[in-house]
């Protein structure tokens, strides 16, 4: 049995490398991106959300329901971003 039989969709997909060009559209100032809160579903510019910098790291909260949208922290020399609270993230097409 070859690998194509084990993975019936093998011929239907590429790999993530092919996203490089499309994802370059996100290499912009992200504070003007619109994000949709996973908790309440409201949508706002990242720059209009509420940022708390007193916690270890930085916590961004939804301006409508105050749920956590994202956390950014420095962990042993890596910038770690968690985005559990964002359902959708949109930038203007370029």
């Amino acid at each position, binding site marked *: 049995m070859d690998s194509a039989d084990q993975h019936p969709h093998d011929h239907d997909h590429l790999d993530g490398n092919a996203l490089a060009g499309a994802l370059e559209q996100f290499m*912009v*100032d992200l*504070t*003007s991106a619109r994000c949709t809160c996973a908790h309440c579903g409201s949508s706002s*510019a*990242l*720059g*209009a959300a509420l940022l708390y*910098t007193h916690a270890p790291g930085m916590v961004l909260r939804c301006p409508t329901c105050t749920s956590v949208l994202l956390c950014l922290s420095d962990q042993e020399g890596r910038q770690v971003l968690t985005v559990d609270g964002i359902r959708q993230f949109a930038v203007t097409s370029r």
Partner: protein
Amino acid sequence: MRKSWQAAEVSAVRPETARSRTIRLRFPDAVTGIAGQHVDLRLTAGDGYQAVRSYSVAGWIPPDELEVTIEELKDGEVSPFLVNDLAPGDELEVRGPVGGWFTWTPDQEGPLQLIAGGSGVVPLMAMLRAHSGAGSAVPARLLYSVRGPEQVFYGSELAVIGQENPHVTVDFAYSREAPDGQPVGRLTREAVMRACFPPEDLPSVYVCGSTGFVEAVASWLVDAGHEAGRIRTERYGG
């Protein structure tokens, strides 16, 4: 967009008020940006401790300089040093200019409404300077809420713009102390409405100040019929 830290040299400083000053920074290369953007400044202590603060750009001096205006915060960790100790020739680590949300460009449609609380005037001054610099005929209004005449930033420049530029109106609202003949008191909803373009003019509105100021003013504007999507806000720390 510059993404990494670089050293900029303090090329000039000048006082704005008793507790604030404008610092001109010279970059190693040409620096451009959009009115409303900020820079992050990073200070490193002898023991390696680092502190980063964001400061709005007040204006650009092509090709390689920009200015920030910094107010000394009581118990501040960074601002007292920047306002009192930093001197021409010193170097600072700078990231930016950055930011794309709280920004204005002269090709933007519609009247420009700026509402400042205290040192929140800094990024709005950058917008007014961009407006004047571009020779824009877009009607612009600045409402500047400030404790008293002694706390006004860019006073003489604002007076000149307000008098000589037919497209710009500058209004002050004094909360604690006012020049003779002018009212004193907390900024009110009515005063904001009097000084602002009405909602039907579809102005782009920029509000910058303390959190309380920004939230109060933005909610009055929405109550008055301004579309929330046309109101951009920036809160400063402290």
